Structure formats: C-alpha cells, structure tokens
C-alpha cells in the first residue's frame, strides 16, 4: 500500500542542513497496524505528515496505492487523501465553532456528498460511537476522551483505507486511552483499516502488529 524509498527531509538554517528525515525506506501493507516510536524530535510526526501528504519530502520516492505521490500535483494529492486517508490528532483538532454533528459532517461537505446521504452517514457513525446524545454540543462542552471519539468519527466518516494517528491518547487519562486503543484495534481487525500511529507508550505500541523506532530522522530497527 505504501512504499517509501530514500525519503529525506531537511531544513536549512544559516547554510547548515538539519535533517528531519534521512533516507527512510519503509513498506506498509494493507491491513497493517503500525506504531512509530521514538524520542521527541526524532521525526515521528514529520514522517506521519509526509505519509499523509500534508508535507513534502525533499528527496526520495513515495508510492501510495501504486501512485507516485512525489510527482503529483497538489490538487491530485488532496483528491487522493480526501478519499483514502483519515487523520486523528493528539489535540483532537475539532473546529470550536461547529457542533459535534457538524464537525463529523465537514469532510463529506468537501466531498460534495448529497445531503440525504450525509445525514445517514453521520447518524450511522454517531450511533456506532454511542455519541448520538452529544451531537448538538460544541467541542468545549465535551471531555477529552469524547472529543477524541468525535475526532476519530470524523476521520472515519469517509471510510478511509488508512488512518494516521499522531499520539491519539497523548492528552487522555489511561482509561480513556485504553478505550481509544481498543477502538483502533477493532477497526483494524474487523474493518481492515490500515492504521499508522505515532506513540510514546510501549503499551499503546503493543496494540499494533509492527513497531518501528525513529532516532534523529532514521529508522533504527526495522523489523
């Protein structure tokens, strides 16, 4: 599904190149649940953003579902990730001005889904996540765990093949964290969604079926 070859990314400050990612080679197959680990500043989030096409690599080749991403134009890329990728963030990143319902609906709006269909899809996912009663609340009226549930619901609404989660439990207490991780495992096992998560916790990494470690922009021990 994903094939990264010799991916490097750097920033230049005062003529000096600082590598964020250096010569990353990585293949991820459909149905995998991959955990990326590593200390702060090791390039985990950068790698995730490159995979999610939010960021460009400076060098290397990136193939996603057989498409050479590094040669595509902005518009084609956004078309791709709109269709196949869902994002989950540590800080949830819900839109404060929108209700739970509207937050979940937003990706569908951008995909020009018809109104009736939209209603059915949002109702379906609210039901699945047991948050029907919260649909008219604003994010500030929810607990962290509930907000993250909404975040995941939003990521799933357009039935993506791949979910990218950047420390999804980082702001949650352990009980809430476990619930979220259980949800991810269920999605992976029952719905066959490919998941890539960035995490600090060995325990959370254990939910996945493969772990890579990053240090100073390099993959340390590919398994």
């Amino acid at each position, binding site marked *: 599904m994903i094939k990264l070859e010799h991916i490097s990314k750097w920033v230049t400050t005062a003529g000096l190149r600082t590598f964020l990612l250096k010569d990353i080679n990585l293949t991820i197959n459909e149905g995998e649940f991959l955990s990326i680990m590593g200390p702060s500043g090791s390039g985990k989030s950068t790698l995730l953003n490159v995979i999610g096409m939010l960021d460009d690599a400076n060098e290397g080749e990136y193939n996603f579902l057989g498409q050479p991403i590094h040669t595509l134009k902005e518009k084609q890329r956004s078309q791709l990730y709109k269709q196949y990728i869902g994002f989950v963030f540590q800080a949830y990143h819900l839109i404060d001005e929108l209700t739970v319902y509207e937050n979940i609906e937003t990706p569908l709006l*951008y995909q020009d889904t018809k109104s009736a269909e939209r209603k059915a899809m949002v109702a379906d996912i609210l039901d699945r996540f047991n948050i029907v009663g919260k649909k008219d609340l604003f994010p500030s009226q929810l607990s962290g765990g509930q907000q993250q549930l909404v975040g995941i619901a939003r990521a799933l609404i357009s039935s993506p093949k791949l979910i990218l989660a950047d420390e999804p439990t980082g702001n949650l207490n352990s009980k809430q964290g476990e619930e979220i991780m259980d949800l991810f495992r269920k999605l992976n096992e029952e719905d066959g969604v490919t998941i890539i998560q960035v995490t600090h916790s060995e325990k959370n990494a254990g939910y996945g079926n493969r772990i890579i470690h990053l240090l100073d922009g390099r993959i340390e021990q590919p398994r």
Partner: protein
Amino acid sequence: MIKNYFRVALRNLWRNKIFSGINIAGLSVGLACCMLILLYLKDEVSFDRFHKNQAQIYRIISQISSPDGKVNKNGITGMMPGPEFKASIPEIESFVRLQGNGYTIKHNSEIYDQPVLVVDDNFFSVFSFPLVEGSAANAFSDMHNVVLTEATAKKYFGNKKAVGQVLNLKNGDKFEPFVVSAVAKNIPQNSSIQFEMLVPMKFVQSQNNDTEWINFFLNTFVVLKPGTDWQKVAAKFDKVFEVKAADQIKQAAEKYNFKEKISFGLQPLLDIHLSTEYTAQNGLDKASNPVYSYILSGIAIFILLIACINFINLTVSRSLKRAKEIGIRKVVGGQRKQLVMQFLGESMILSLISFVLALVLVFLILPVFNSLANKSLAFSYLADAPLIIGYIALFLITGLLAGFYPAMVLSGFNPVQTLYGRQRFTGKNYLSKGMVVFQFSLACLLIIATIVIYSQFNYLMKFDLGYNVKNVGRVNVGNIDKEKLALFGNELMKNPAIEKVTANQGGRWGTIAQVNNGTDISFDFKIIDHNYFPLFEIPIVQGRNFSPDLASDTAEGAIVNQSFVEKAGWKNPIGEKVDFFYNKKKYTVIGVIRDYHYQSLAEKIQPQLFITNPAYKYGDVFIKFKPASIASVQPYIAATFKNFFPVQPYQFNSKELDTASQYESELKWKQMITFSAILTIFISCIGLFGLATFAAEKRTKEIGIRKVLGASIPVIVRTLSTDFLKLVLLSTLIASPVAWWVMNKWLDNYPYRIQITWWVFGLTILLATGIALLTISYQAIRAAMANPVNSLKTE
C-alpha cells in the same frame, strides 16, 4: 454546503462581537455615506431631465469681451435675441423668455411680497410642467392672467378652486386685477426653473417695451428642430446680431464710449445646473457647483475605503485565532478554492448586515444631509432601477474589496504549521501597517482641513469690516423720495430707543464715469443720505460729510472711498471732478471715507462713490437703535411702517445677520469637512481599537513572561502602545505637507485670509496621537493588568 458556511459565518460573527461590531459599524457608516452620495449625484444629474423636449432646448448665452481682454460670460440676454434670432435662423422652432421678478400683491386687504417668473405665452409648450387646473393653451390668453402653483394657490385661496379668482398686482402706484388662469403642479425640486407664480411677458412688455440689445437681464430659451447641430446654429448668432443691432452698437460707442464686443452662443438645457461658467440666475435657480459633488464623493469613498481597511486589517490579524480551523478544514479535505469561497461568503454576510444597517442610517440622517447639501432628497428616490443597481454594485464591491485579500491570506495557510502551532507572522506586516498609516493620514488631513477652515471662518466673522452693523435694522420701503424719508425718519426718531435713521437705494449698482478729463473709471456707486456714514460709524478721513443744508452738496457733491482715490491716482482728492458723461452730470468730491468691507470678504474692496442726488429714490431704510432694545423698538417700527406704507410688505432684517449670510458657503464647507473629519477619525479609531485588541491577545504570553520577570504595568503599556503611536505619528508627518498645500490652495480664493501656522500641525499631532492613545490604552492597560499565571498556564 452553503447552509453550513452561512451557519459558521453567523456563529463566528456572534462569537467575536468586538470584531463584528467594529466592522459592521465602520462598513455601515461608510456604505451609508456612499449611498447618500449616490442619491445626491443621481439628483444632480437628473436636473431638468423631466422636460419632454429637453434634448432640443437650449439657452442663449452671451459673452462680453472688453478691449483689455477681460471676458464676461453670462447666461442671460435682453428681450431682443429671442424673437430676432428666430426670425432669421430657420432651425429655431420657437423661443421662450423668462425673467425672475417680484410683485406686491393685495389679496383680502393683506399685502404680500410675491416672487414671480415673467414668461412668454408658449412657456407650457416648451417646458413640461403639468397643470392641475386650466389648460396650457389658454394659460395666458389675456395679459392680465397669472398661473399659480398648487402651493401658491393654497396660500391665497385655501382649498377653494383657484382658476377664475382674482389677485391684485401692484403696477406703478396702483393695483391691477389679474385673473388666475391655471394652476400648475408644484415644481419638482430637481428643476432649474422654479416658480410660485407666472406673469405673462406681454404684460411687462406693454408697460415697457425694451428693445435694447446691449442689456442683459433675462433667460432666453430656444427650441431647435430635431436633429439640428446646435453649434452650427450658435455660430450664426453673431452675424444676425451685428446686422440687426448695428445702429445700437454704433450709438453705444458714441454715447457711452462702449468698446466691448458682444457675442452670443447656446448652452444645452441639461448643462445649466452644473455649469460654473454660465450659471443659473435671473429666474433660474439651484445652480450647483460640481466641486461639491467631487468633494462629497471623494470623502464618501474614502470613508468606505477606511472601513474596508479596518475589515482587512482586523481579519488578517485575527487569522491566527482561526488558523487551527483552516488547518483542520484543509486536512479533512477542504480545497483552497472552497475555503476562499467560505471566507468571501463571510465578508459578504458582514457587508449585507452593514448594508441593511446603512439603509436605516440613510433614512435617519437624510434630513441632516439635506440641510448640509442644500437638497430636498427623499428616501423614496431609492425606488429607481439604476440607483438600486448602483447600491447592489456598492454592496458587492464592498464585500469583495474587504473580503478578497483576507480570504487569500487565510486560505493560504499551511495545515501542518497551523496544527502544530508553528504558525508565525513572518515579515514585519508592512501591508497592515501601511494601511493604518493610510487611514490616519486621511484622518489627519481632514483634521488639519477642519482647523484651517474654522480659523478662516472665525477670521472672516471677526474681521474688522470698517463699519458697525451692530443694532442696525433694515426695512424695505419700496421706492421713496427724500421728503418721504425725512417724514418717516422723524416719526421713527420719536422713539427714544432709536438713535439714527438713514437710507440707500436698494441693491448694488456699478457704473462707469470719467476722471482726470477723460480717463474711464468703473466703480460701485450708492445713493445715500447724510446720516449714512455716522450711522454705520464709517470715518471720514479727508474733507467732510454731506450737509443737508447745502444745496450744492445734494446736487453735485460726491464722497469716495480710499480705493477710488487710489485708482483715480489723485494726490489731493477734494475738489476733483467725476464726470458721468452719459447723462452729462458732473460731481465734485467733497470727502473721502476710509475703505470698508461693504461686500463679503471673498471680494476685494472696489472703488466706491456716494451721492445724495434727489433724482434717485431710496429703497432700504436703516435704523440704528440702542443696544438691547430690539424687542421694544421692533413693534414700534412695524406700526410706523404700516402707517407710512400701507401697501408695502413689512419685513425687518438685522443688518448683522445680513452680513453673516454672506458666508453661507463657508459655513457649509465648515460643516461638511467637520462632519467627515469626525467620521474618518471615528472609523479609523475603532479599527485601531480592534488591532490593539488582537495585538494584546497575540502578546498575552509575552506580557505574562515580562511581568513574571518584573516589568511594571506602565512599562508594559508603553511597550504595547509605542508600535501604534509610531504609525500615527508617521501619518501626521505624511498628512501635514499635503494638507498645507491643499489648504493654501483653498485659502488662495480669499483676498483676506489667515496664514497657516505651525500650531495647526502641532495641534493635529497632539489630537491624532491623543485620540489614538486613548483608543489603544484601554486594551494595553487591560493586558498589562492581567494575571500572568492565567496567560502562561494556557500554553
């Protein structure tokens, strides 16, 4: 999708009340100004368009060029050009003459002063003034017919049918009955031809048939055949004039030493209203200087522009708060185009709200605006297709102008940077600063203009005119001779509060005479009596005043002013002769008065000559009374007046107010500029307030750290304020030279003017920075007082 945008936009507006309030306030004021100006302009260009034949109607104009190259342009002619040009030039279908005049009317033993328009019989077939009673064909079937407007008919006859009723018009010494033949609809306000009553020209001609070509006192309109090139017609005038008036031209040259060259032309009817060369006069009204249109439009556009700048600046500085939302929208699949649409939609909604509010504002301030702009515009004028299109265009342009740039900036944010909190404002944000400087430069420009106009106005009002008009009243007595004046004066003087009485011939007269044995000199001349100079406290600097006891004084004595002496080049003026060669009369100078400003200070003092020759009659009587006695003398004057002049309408005018009324145009400028200065400053300041609010928010963390490190509140307030104050200071520096130049240009119109001194700029700097500081300091102090614990914990 659109519903969703709409909802988000409204929620955003509601949540950011300061932001929305500032923008809506600014934009609605700006839009209201522009709407008013559109109304004003529409009215200006609509003048006289309602006449069905307007494309064929032209006015005959005249130019009088003197040998020294001076050209005097006039929109008026005498009686002759109309009929004579029509007789000789086949393209002229018809002509109609109209002249403003006034008649004294007696009705039910009441006496009225009635302004009238004297017109030719075909008036109603040339101009489209609909009649409500009577018929156009029979309006002037008899020369003792008059036509009234509805309002005038109501004034004289109440709700009774006016046609067939009789009004008595004073002709010479007796009243003659005139029958009302028709009643016209009230005249639309956008008409150059305004009248209350029409009197037939043939009646005036029957009294005095003026066949002089070299005499200019009425408006002559011609109707050209359809499709005629009016310039070709105009080119034929001078030849006709030279042939038909040959004798008169020759006579004038011999008798009056008339050397001027007269030439005639045409002016399209629609050009009259805004013409600065050939203005509406002698029966035409409401002339308007297009400069007012330009300046008013300019100011309105600037105010709207400043409001748009507020919107742009505030939206961009607020964008950091919205960065996260933008990032999320992009991550979940929003394309830039879709985001641009969303933000543009938001600015459109804001403009729409402002637009509606602006309509309400227009409705509320229309009466004030009318008095300021000398108009009678009505809100109902809005029901007009081009105007509505104009307003919609105004709304769209405002929405786009204000929304486009922020939409581009906001939608360009990189989601990775915004979501990971790495978004920084790179660069120094020159655009936003530049726009603040632009706003405040305009505001300063208007502040300086206001101060200068105020000072000049004050200067004119307090100017020592060289004579005293305090406690002087003026009444118009029609036409009386010396004996009658003496009787009237004596009767008035019986009241102990009345100190002096004098009179002059009504109106302002200029003439030409010869001095130094044959040199022409033109001057203003006045018929007065011996009390004139003492009453107005005008000092005699050489010679003496007229003496009523010396027959030679009344017959051939003259007093001149210093300007006259100067122009005549006299070393010793007393005893010099002034030769009125055309009526073979010589006057001897017996005294010289100090120059005084008998006209508005917008004019230089002209040479003046005064005589008391009893051959002339008196029109205006001046009454000087003791200070603070006006209330008690007025009824006495009125009663005496009624006794002496039972058929003359009585009106008491204060000479002081007469003088002040010369400065109406200055007063209007003053009001207009003050008004716009206040608006500009207000809108600029609410913008600055918004910017300061966001700046304080953006720097909450910095302020928290500074406080923890020991910075005091004043230090923090200063840190927050200086950035903005520097910009305002820069604006005053930019505005000052521009304002200095512009205002000097304006002052150049006045022969008596102030000099712009440095304190004007000092005061402006003080005002601008003071107002700005007040605006900013609220936010700065609030931010500085905040507990650092709160601001630092949130990170």
